[in-house]
């Protein structure tokens, strides 16, 4: 009853499945409207800058997921394609400024994409023969090589200061010279919608679908007559193209590109971001990119220990919900289809809210330990959750400890009830 071989486009929940053949416009229209409206809610320049960073990461993560989620190819050095595209765009920007070329800025990411794709073609020619460890190791080696070269080849990469430029010298595009942050925001939003739409369409083309097949069973895919190697190569080049676009957007937004854009840390981050969001769904990396940018930028304003929390979050994601945040959300689709999702709300509140409070209690303990150990002598006050207190007295520790214990204890106690409710919500037509 719930598992049909074909999808029924009239049922909304079925359209969400990655295997759906129909193209639904709903989410795209909502997204476009949201993108247009966001600057009116968050008007400060710093919010715009952070949103720009989010959208750039989204494009990069989606391009990365073309390989990881859809192609089953794990790449460790993918930041180089974004970096190379970005550096090329930077040089283009400088040429425009030096030679007064009449070149509209909005076209710039396209060239970044082409450069990224060119490099992907070169590297892909020998790296895509195998998909597993061999591919991963080559990508690691190439990534490290190019990152190391970036400090040596100063002419192209600018050494430690990188390459910087000014985006306002291009041909004014309908009168806009991109002096203001908001203009850049709309440019990036446009490229985001365009790239995401193109990548989604790519995943629906025969090449894109064959990439899924090659991921799952390369030998069988070859029985169908497709060369696994060429399919992987095309995916790789397409991914390189969109990474280059992300690099171009980065160049426009920050007007500077440095070695940091190419190094192993950036490659590692995009892997984590994509995984956090969920590799099994198209929109997974989008969620991952937004969540991670917020974590990194906003959390780091609140605490120095943000990296511990992020690392812990990744471990928890891998161990307990490897489908990522998207997987977590989509897990509820069967219940929604059965119309029983509302039965989950109360058990969730009963378990997850105390759990969250308990985790916050643990965080408070960690923060207090850190402050106690590494804070300056005599500087006993610390501010946490909008209260200021002395970290050297026993009371805050007791409160935090009790909160943590009670929160986690209650969560533990109500967990079986939540599991029952979950089973109930996922069973069709009454108790089994």
């Amino acid at each position: 009853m719930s598992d049909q071989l074909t999808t029924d486009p009239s049922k909304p929940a079925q359209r969400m499945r990655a295997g759906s053949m129909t193209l639904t416009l709903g989410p795209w229209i909502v997204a476009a409207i949201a993108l247009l409206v966001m600057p009116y809610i968050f008007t400060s320049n710093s919010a715009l800058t952070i949103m720009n960073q989010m959208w750039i990461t989204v494009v990069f993560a989606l391009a990365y997921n073309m390989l990881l989620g859809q192609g089953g190819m794990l790449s460790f050095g993918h930041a180089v394609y974004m970096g190379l595209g970005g550096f090329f765009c930077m040089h283009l920007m400088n040429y425009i400024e030096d030679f007064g070329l009449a070149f509209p800025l909005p076209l710039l990411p396209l060239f970044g994409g082409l450069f990224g794709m060119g490099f992907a073609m070169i590297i892909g020619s020998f790296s895509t023969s195998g998909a597993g460890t061999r591919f991963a190791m080559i990508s690691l080696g190439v990534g490290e090589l190019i990152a190391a070269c970036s400090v040596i080849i100063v002419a192209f990469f600018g050494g430690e200061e990188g390459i910087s430029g000014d985006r306002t010298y291009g041909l004014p595009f309908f009168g806009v010279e991109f002096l203001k942050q908001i203009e850049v925001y709309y440019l990036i939003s446009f490229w985001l919608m365009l790239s995401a739409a193109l990548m989604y369409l790519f995943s629906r083309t025969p090449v894109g679908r064959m990439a899924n097949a090659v991921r799952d069973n390369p030998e069988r895919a070859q029985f169908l007559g497709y060369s696994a190697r060429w399919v992987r190569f095309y995916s790789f080049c397409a991914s390189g193209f969109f990474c280059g676009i992300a690099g171009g957007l980065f160049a426009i937004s920050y007007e500077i590109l440095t070695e940091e854009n190419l190094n192993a840390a950036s490659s590692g981050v995009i892997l984590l971001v994509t995984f956090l969001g969920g590799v099994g769904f198209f929109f997974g990396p989008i969620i991952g990119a937004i969540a991670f940018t917020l974590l990194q930028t906003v959390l780091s304003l609140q605490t120095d220990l943000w990296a511990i929390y992020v690392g812990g979050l990744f471990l928890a994601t891998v161990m307990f919900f490897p489908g990522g945040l998207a997987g977590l959300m989509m897990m509820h689709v069967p219940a929604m289809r059965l119309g029983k999702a509302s039965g989950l709300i109360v058990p969730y509140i009963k378990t997850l809210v105390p759990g969250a409070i308990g985790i916050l209690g643990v965080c408070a303990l960690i923060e207090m330990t850190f402050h106690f150990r590494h804070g300056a002598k005599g500087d006993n006050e610390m501010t946490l959750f909008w209260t200021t207190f002395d970290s050297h007295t026993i009371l805050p520790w007791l409160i935090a400890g009790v909160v943590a214990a009670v929160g986690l204890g209650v969560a533990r106690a109500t967990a079986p009830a939540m599991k029952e409710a979950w089973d109930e919500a996922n069973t069709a037509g009454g108790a089994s």
Partner: protein
Amino acid sequence: MKNITKLGAVSALSLIVGATAAFADNIKIAFIDPLSGPFASTGTNGLHQYQFAADHMVNEKGGVLGGQNFEIVPFDNKISPKESLIQLQVAIDQGIRYIAQGNSSGVANALTEAIDKHNKRNPDSRVLFLNYAAVDPALTNDKCNFWHFRFDANADIKMDALTDVMAADESMKKVYIIGQDYSFGKAVAAAAVANLAEKRPDVEIVGNELHPIGKVKDFTPYARKIVASGADAIITGNWGADMLGLGKSVIENGYDGPIFTYYAAGSGMTAAFGDSAKDRIRLISQGGINPIATEEARATYEAFEAKYPDGNIDQSRIFNVIGMLAQAIEGAGTADDVVAVAKQLEGMEYDSMWGGKIFMRPQDHQAIQDMHVGVHTNENIDFDYDNSGYGVFTESTVTMASMDSPTTCEMKRP
């Protein structure tokens, strides 16, 4: 699905919007440097020095402009230029007009350009850039701008002073130059070669090489080459783990001459070098601490040690930054019109508590001050680093180093 994620982003972004500072009466100075990651210790130590200087020199004495206090607002840039630009934007949105940064010339380059562009495009929210430690000479030459002020001597000035001292040593005949392969290391090498050629043409430069920055795990092969070349002196601009590795390796492998460095003290390095590097390592820097120059400085250092027993005042110029900024704000009568404050700062002559005067050259906004060559030792050390008993003792001083040095800066003034 995207609308749900947008909703989540909306609620989370409101955190940023809401996190604006409360006090309108404080003059805020943004401190954009690494507070997490591999360089966190330098950044955190610098932040402590800033906070202490603001409290001790300004706030406890009644503030400036009749009662306004300095407030240091830290931003963690994780040594990344991209993060720095984001945090710059956050700082500007919080109404902060003074940006302090120093760790990494790469970040400084990114910031100075971003600030120049921002000030051009947004004349009503201009900011000043107080560069307290990034020593790439380009920042006050090709890349200079009116908003950037450098309070540390740049790499060329330091080399000029260092070679003055080295040239006086007649027994030195062979010099080996080694550095990190990036703009700063190359600048140090080029300045060393040029200065030595001018001051001691008889000295032979037996080695001049660059090694990959932050990647060398074992400096033994380099140490072997240095020993084999018969060098009497080593010059290096290395810092961090590279400095520690290089220093320990050459000493261990049989080199017995002096090592002239820029950054071989503090942040755990003095303790790690310890006895093995006694009387071997020399540093060129501003603001000598042993012997301490004034009673005010002694009182300041002792109060700092009381508050931060594990901290070091290894960037005493931070106190100069705060002092000069306070003096400029008082002179301009305002803290909001940064052009007026900047005009007070350039050309300012300031008496530093660490001894000597600081002169901010108007043509390139480079501070000119006394430079000291100190030696790593445990004798006559009143103020040690890392609680190790070892510290830096000033051996020689060059007064107002490079006062008349040329500059390629063509500053556009507002």
